[in-house]
């Protein structure tokens, strides 16, 4: 069955450093992959989408890569700030279904 894996352990980094979060998938060939941010007590909020024919996508301090050979997406936040502290979810999707499969998320904590 399809499986999406994200680091279950929290990632703690110092302000100003680059945070890198990993999303691995198995038994799946997604056409695109989305990343969402979730704050406590809130629903997830869409951040970025990357398609299978794109190696990299950037938005302000965010960068996402998509390696279909490794079956992996990396999510980078450069010059991280305490306000970036949240849980980040990846969600691969394909064009044959309108459903997304969400990973369990990785909690990022940026400390001053």
């Amino acid at each position, binding site marked *: 069955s399809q499986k999406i894996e994200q680091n279950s352990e929290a990632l703690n980094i110092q302000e100003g450093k680059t945070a890198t979060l990993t999303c691995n998938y198995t038994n799946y060939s997604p056409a695109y992959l989305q990343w969402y941010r979730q704050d406590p007590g809130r*629903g*997830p909020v869409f951040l970025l989408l990357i398609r299978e024919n794109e190696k990299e996508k950037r938005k302000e301090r965010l960068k996402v890569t998509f390696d279909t050979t490794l079956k992996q997406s990396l999510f980078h936040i450069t010059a991280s700030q305490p306000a970036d502290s949240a849980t980040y979810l990846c969600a691969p999707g394909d064009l044959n279904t309108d*459903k997304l499969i969400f990973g369990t998320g990785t909690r990022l904590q940026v400390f001053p």
Partner: protein
Amino acid sequence: GAGVSQSPSNKVTEKGKDVELRCDPISGHTALYWYRQSLGQGLEFLIYFQGNSAPDKSGLPSDRFSAERTGGSVSTLTIQRTQQEDSAVYLCASSFIGTSENIQYFGAGTRLSVL
């Protein structure tokens, strides 16, 4: 409204009671999803509505769970004879299925506590 609205935001009920959770999607969005998120866990897909098509109920955990979407807009998730393991946050999302990708917009969720 501008976003997805869910009500109530919190619901405390006794084991064995029925509960109804409501979702108002973004106007014009054709697809509506219900998810369940237990403490510290990811999103568990429950059910999906798209236009006038039959809903995809493949994620409903038992026949105590049901959902309907009236007039292609508001949706209600009903849990009958609630159990303690039903305690979780129930999230609703809507999207516009008109492009090849499916960006979902979430409500803040309903936190259900079954005592």
